[in-house]
């Protein structure tokens, strides 16, 4: 059994409850014991670093200090934004011991910062620590026929020198996981374009325009749905979708699901565990493609010899 310190993030108990719930289900199946950080606090999200210097470090630092007390090697974070703040903070603190010492004074009651915990997003954890092979072995109900566009958003892979995970331009980890579940990951160019993120409330027109472009390209890719690993991306793409459709006159009808929901489905959990009614864009239609067999393209079976080298014999 693997043990993992878990940081759910504020939205896990609100907008992204289905993420939190299915994550816990699949982790159980994968034999990972998740220990939630007791009394965790908000990471400060965008607002803290936009407005302040020290608070932006202090808020995540408190969580890091609390996490270190649990003595697991790794901390897994559900929300991409929390993950990014935690990673950025950790990098700053580890690179500048003076700074770490200074910020530590604001939370000294919680203890000393040691810097000895590894921070990973849950996607990263699934991909690197568990691996697609193991995940594939747990699949009881393959998602064959389902075409998905994997959307990573900004913060899971960027900036590269902070995350050290996958490509910042064309990541493949989630695609590989989805293929392990039996689904088909489509070629999708807007994997890491920004959805508008923190402007969700303050600047809705920006979100609508950016998320609209992502929906457009995802639709173009031929996908039945978008798969995400970030609550904010999910809410921007899902909740705002009707508005975007109304303003642009385009019809997307692209449900936006968490990768853990699809994992749970493929692992054989009943649909009601996915909390599908929480979705603004209905999911059923997309899920109905599961089981569809794609007509095999009429490709001539390549002889072994031909594949062997670049050379081919006439």
């Amino acid at each position, binding site marked *: 059994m693997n043990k993992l310190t878990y940081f759910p993030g*504020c*939205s896990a*108990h*609100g*907008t992204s*409850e289905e993420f939190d719930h299915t994550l816990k289900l699949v982790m159980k199946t994968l034999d990972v014991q998740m220990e939630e950080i007791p*009394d*965790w*606090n*908000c990471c*400060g*999200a*965008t*607002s*803290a*670093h*936009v*407005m*302040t*210097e*020290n*608070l932006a470090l*202090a*808020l995540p630092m*408190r969580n890091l200090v609390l996490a270190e007390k649990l003595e697991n090697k790794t901390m897994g974070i559900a929300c991409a934004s929390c993950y990014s703040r935690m990673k950025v903070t950790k990098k700053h603190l580890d690179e500048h011991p003076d700074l770490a010492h*200074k*910020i530590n*004074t*604001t*939370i000294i*009651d*919680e203890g000393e910062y040691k810097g000895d915990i590894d921070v990973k997003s849950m996607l990263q954890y699934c991909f690197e620590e568990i691996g697609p092979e193991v995940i594939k072995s747990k699949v009881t109900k393959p998602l064959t026929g389902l075409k998905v566009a994997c959307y990573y958003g*900004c*913060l899971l892979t*960027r*900036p*590269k020198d902070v995350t050290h995970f996958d490509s*910042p*331009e064309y990541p493949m980890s989630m695609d590989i996981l989805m293929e392990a579940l039996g689904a088909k990951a489509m070629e999708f160019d807007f994997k*890491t*374009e*920004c959805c*508008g*993120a*923190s*402007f969700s*409330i*303050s*600047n*809705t027109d*920006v979100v609508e325009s*950016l998320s609209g472009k992502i929906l457009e390209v995802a639709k173009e890719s031929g996908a039945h749905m978008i798969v995400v690993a970030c609550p904010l991306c999910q*809410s921007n793409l899902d*909740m705002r979708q009707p*508005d975007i459709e109304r303003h642009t006159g385009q019809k997307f009808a692209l449900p936006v699901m968490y990768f853990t929901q699809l994992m749970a489905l493929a692992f054989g959990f009943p649909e009601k565990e996915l*909390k599908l*009614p*929480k*979705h*603004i864009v209905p999911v059923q239609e997309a899920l109905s493609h599961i089981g569809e067999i794609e007509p095999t393209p009429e490709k001539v079976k390549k002889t072994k010899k031909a594949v062997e080298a670049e050379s081919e014999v006439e």
Partner: protein
Amino acid sequence: MITLGLQDQNTFLEAVNKKSGANVLECYQCGKCVSTCPVSGYMDFPPREIMQMIKLGLKEETMMANSMWFCLTCSACSGRCPREIDIPAVMEAIRHLAIEENYRSDNKKVKEIRKFHDIFLDMVKRYGRNYELRMMAEFNIRTRNLFKDMHLAPKALLKGKITIGHESTKSAKAIQKMYKLAGKLEKGEK
């Protein structure tokens, strides 16, 4: 028209470089950041122009721009910058400078964005965590735009997308203390 050459030293450039850890002088104006930036269309000066303005020492113009407030810190620009300049750090530096030196843009959007962040931080201060519905409501009240997104609310509520109740961290006090001490640190630095 802007007259250059009046300053002996570009102290603004120095301040931005020091605060951001980047070197703005490395920018060679290729514009890759501009077409990368998802919100450059909303900025009155896109990143490339901001870099040049800092180089020219145009402090007032830079500080009153809306650009840094629109920056989403998505890091797409720095990931593609051929000179590997940490542009989000530069944006953050001028934002912090603007806050410290009390530059306040009249731009309605900037005001709203700042308000949002204030409310957010306020909420975290009170409860240790953040709650979307309350956040949304408070933002709408404080920006006097009561009905914004109201059409979403019933649906979202109904679907359980947004919950009304909320919990706080047990040690909200610890957070409040942190706020106080962090604030002091910031003042101490100035």
